């Protein structure tokens, strides 16, 4: 402690190196405000006693308690006390720093005080909420307030700096979420870079045949957005591209994007002659086994960008496409391209993946007549092999009995997915209804555990499906087995409502596979340093109040990457993400509180321990000079402080002297209170 004090004196004599280093400060005059938080605190802590105790603490000029400090009246009470008693520091003993420090800091900064002169003491989460013991809670609250007052007395004013930021956003993922976010951002005048891994944009929505609850054609509904994004002057679309490196922080991310070669130039007119002559035919991934494509292809007719792609994995280098192309667009010499973008914010919209039911061996997924809902969508598409007809993939016959099976890979602890995808009930009901519409003589069974259709027009949609004559069976099939003696699929299920175990002999089984986090997201989330939920989706900042923020400043989440969502929810979520990502860019600057690391050059011995420890690379050192902290990059994490062998690096307002004062007060009051008991 003495070292730090000496350091303070030394500083004053030197020329101002850090503009905001502790100056000669006037005598601390602290005001203590103890909040009842209704019954949240006052129900356990004797707040009057705490306020009374605080009034005797050193430097405390004023102390009181109030029902709700964060109310307008509470804030006015603080401001009045500051003015009347000439307070220069405030301590509010209430809830968490995260929740209300900004509220009270603003209250005092409105009066001209530095906002950092406010100290928040959390006697709710850290005290009253964790015990019913009133006496112990009151004592703990007193100790915490005493520590807060001691810390407050030592606090230094800290500047807030405005940092200019790069006005550009990167949207990762070109599904409906990414498109919506990109469009909304671009419409605000913010340049957008849209990065899509696949050959075309549009994502899962373009694979669907109909959308609930209106049975609209999804391609028709999404294509204005697709075309809008493609032709928007402020949006740069990069397909076949992936984010390979991310550096920097909010406001100044430097993102490296690698683009795989398409082997077809953008002057492609999409005439399709290359595909006509291509001798190689393979399964089209886009159609999930229900369509074929050539080695040079467009996954579906409306694909954007409307350019063919050469798949070198299957290409036999015959060169037919090169010869036949009327505009010489096919070019085998194209190579991988790496580009770097500076962006202010990033929106992650990498979507979901359909659960692969192979793992549930009892369901025998892999048999041609056992398909998933996404495969059903492709079967119903007019561009695939079935030409939109519902048939048994094994023999092309019209199915007489179809079973739709819900909760495949959702609500299943065995496969590690405890959650309910929440979309499949509507998804399954929709396809069951479409099957019944196409084939009125076919029996359609719908095996479910619970029907979950909350929201406007969803229950009505369910009712419409019931009217069509779909047989709803409340029970989860135990096994789905191809009959070895015939060509039927045997579905064993109990109708739990009549207690009847039964076997349905089906021609076609459609599995409502859940939504899971996309494969490969781990790599991207590691590059972006995002926290993930145990299910693999990206974790939001706060489930209620921050669903579009990620765990990292400046990175936002749009759509199903935050958790399973239907299209309606995805579009709304993406709009929210776009507005959150646009907010700092529209403002044009970031406000950063400079309670960052600061180096005392006289104490520093240039060991460079801090430079190597800093996780964000905020400390740099030039030839022959002492290390310097980049205030903008510093995250105030404090990792550098213990790395310094001489105590030369400190975090403003977390200096050793300040923390020592806090801890000493905590301990000395404890001794006092215990002594009083005896």
């Amino acid at each position, binding site marked *: 402690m003495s070292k730090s004090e000496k350091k303070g004196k030394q500083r004053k004599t030197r020329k101002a190196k850090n503009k905001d280093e502790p100056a000669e400060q006037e005598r601390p005059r602290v005001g203590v405000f103890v909040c009842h938080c209704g019954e949240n605190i006052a129900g356990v802590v004797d707040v009057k006693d705490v306020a009374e105790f605080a009034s005797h603490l050193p430097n405390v000029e004023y102390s009181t308690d109030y029902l709700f400090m964060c109310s307008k009246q509470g804030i006015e009470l603080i401001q009045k006390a500051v003015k009347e008693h000439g307070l220069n520091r405030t301590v509010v003993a209430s809830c968490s720093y995260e929740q209300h420090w900004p509220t009270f800091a603003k209250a005092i900064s409105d009066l001209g005080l530095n906002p950092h002169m406010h100290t928040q003491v959390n006697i709710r989460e850290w005290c009253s909420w964790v015990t019913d013991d009133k006496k112990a809670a009151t004592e703990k609250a007193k100790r915490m307030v005493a520590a807060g007052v001691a810390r407050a007395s030592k606090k230094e004013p800290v500047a807030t700096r405005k940092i200019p930021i790069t006005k550009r956003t990167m949207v990762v993922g070109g599904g409906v979420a990414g498109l919506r976010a990109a469009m909304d951002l671009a419409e605000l005048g913010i340049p957008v870079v849209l990065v899509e891994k696949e050959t075309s944009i549009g994502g899962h929505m373009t694979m669907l045949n109909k959308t609930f609850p209106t049975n609209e054609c999804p391609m028709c509904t999404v294509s204005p957005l697709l075309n809008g994004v493609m032709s928007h002057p402020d949006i740069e679309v990069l397909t076949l591209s992936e984010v390979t490196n991310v550096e920097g922080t909010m406001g100044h991310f430097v993102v490296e994007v690698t683009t795989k070669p398409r082997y077809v130039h953008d002057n492609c007119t999409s005439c399709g002659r290359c595909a006509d002559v291509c001798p190689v035919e393979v399964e089209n991934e886009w159609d999930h086994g229900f369509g074929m494509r050539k080695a040079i292809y467009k996954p579906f007719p409306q694909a954007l960008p409307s350019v063919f792609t050469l798949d070198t994995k299957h290409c036999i280098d015959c060169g037919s496409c090169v010869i036949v192309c009327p505009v010489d667009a096919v070019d085998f010499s194209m190579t991988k391209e790496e580009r770097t973008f500076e962006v202010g914010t990033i929106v992650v919209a990498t979507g979901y993946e359909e659960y692969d039911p192979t793992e549930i061996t009892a369901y025998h997924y892999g048999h041609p007549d056992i398909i998933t809902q996404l495969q059903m969508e492709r079967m119903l598409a007019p561009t695939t092999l079935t030409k939109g007809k519902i048939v048994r993939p094994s023999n092309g016959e019209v199915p007489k009995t179809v079973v739709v099976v819900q909760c495949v890979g959702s609500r299943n602890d065995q496969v590690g997915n405890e959650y309910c995808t929440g979309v499949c009930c509507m998804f399954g009901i929709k396809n069951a209804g479409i099957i019944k519409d196409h084939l009125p003589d076919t029996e359609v069974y719908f095996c479910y555990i619970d029907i979950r259709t909350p929201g406007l027009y969803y229950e009505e949609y369910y009712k419409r499906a019931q009217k069509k004559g779909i047989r709803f069976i409340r029970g989860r099939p*135990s096994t789905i087995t191809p009959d070895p003696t015939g060509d039927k699929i045997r579905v064993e299920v109990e109708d739990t409502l009549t207690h009847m175990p039964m076997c349905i002999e089906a021609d076609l089984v459609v599995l409502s596979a859940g939504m899971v986090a996309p494969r490969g997201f781990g790599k991207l989330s590691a590059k972006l340093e995002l926290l993930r939920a145990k299910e693999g989706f990206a974790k939001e900042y706060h489930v209620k109040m921050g669903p579009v923020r990620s765990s990292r400043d400046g990175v936002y989440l749009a759509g199903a990457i935050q958790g399973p969502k239907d299209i309606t929810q995805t579009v709304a979520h993406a709009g929210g993400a776009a507005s959150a990502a646009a907010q700092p860019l529209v403002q044009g600057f970031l406000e950063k509180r400079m309670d960052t690391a600061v180096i005392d050059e006289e104490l520093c011995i240039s060991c460079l321990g801090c430079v190597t420890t800093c996780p964000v690379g905020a400390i740099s050192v030039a030839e022959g000079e002492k290390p310097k902290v980049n205030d903008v990059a510093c995250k105030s994490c404090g990792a550098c402080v213990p790395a310094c062998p001489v105590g030369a690096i400190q975090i403003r307002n977390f200096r050793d002297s300040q923390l020592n004062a806090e801890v000493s007060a905590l301990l000395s009051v404890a001794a006092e209170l215990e002594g009083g008991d005896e």
Partner: protein
Amino acid sequence: MSVFKNPPCVLDSGKRDPTIEETLKAAGFDPNLCIQCGTCTASCPSGRWTAMRTREVMRKAAFSIEVVLSDPDIWLCTTCYQCYDRCPRDLQVTDAIIALRNLASARGFISDKHRKTVDLLHKTGHAVPINDRIRKIRKELGLPELPPTVYCYPEELEKLGKTLFQLPPRPEDHDEEEER
């Protein structure tokens, strides 16, 4: 015959038997976590032919009422572990049925056939005691008439009887045949 033979069921929390829930939880089956999806019943090779409805047994167990112990259906489980293998909530269904059976027999709820087996064990030390035919065959093969098991040591049988599972008598108000 009256049509009003089933009085309305009144749920009396006082009749809840906490031991049932505790026993099941110890066996790895929290009956409150069951979502009644019916995967167990649909998996059950016994239930396809008999009155055994695994899901229903688990539902009754969730109410912790003694009916679940006196229910003869719990003895129809073949302990094949198919339900255990497939439960989407990963509950240990088969172990729960075994635990229920243990608790049921400790209270005297056990089918006549199983009870007879226990009685034979007490009486002879064997679940399947020796009979005249076997005695004859043994003699023909030149073996002693009785195998060198507890048959040859009647004093040991008495000791065995003391350590064996003691089956309490059937509760008086319970008639298995009527329940069926």
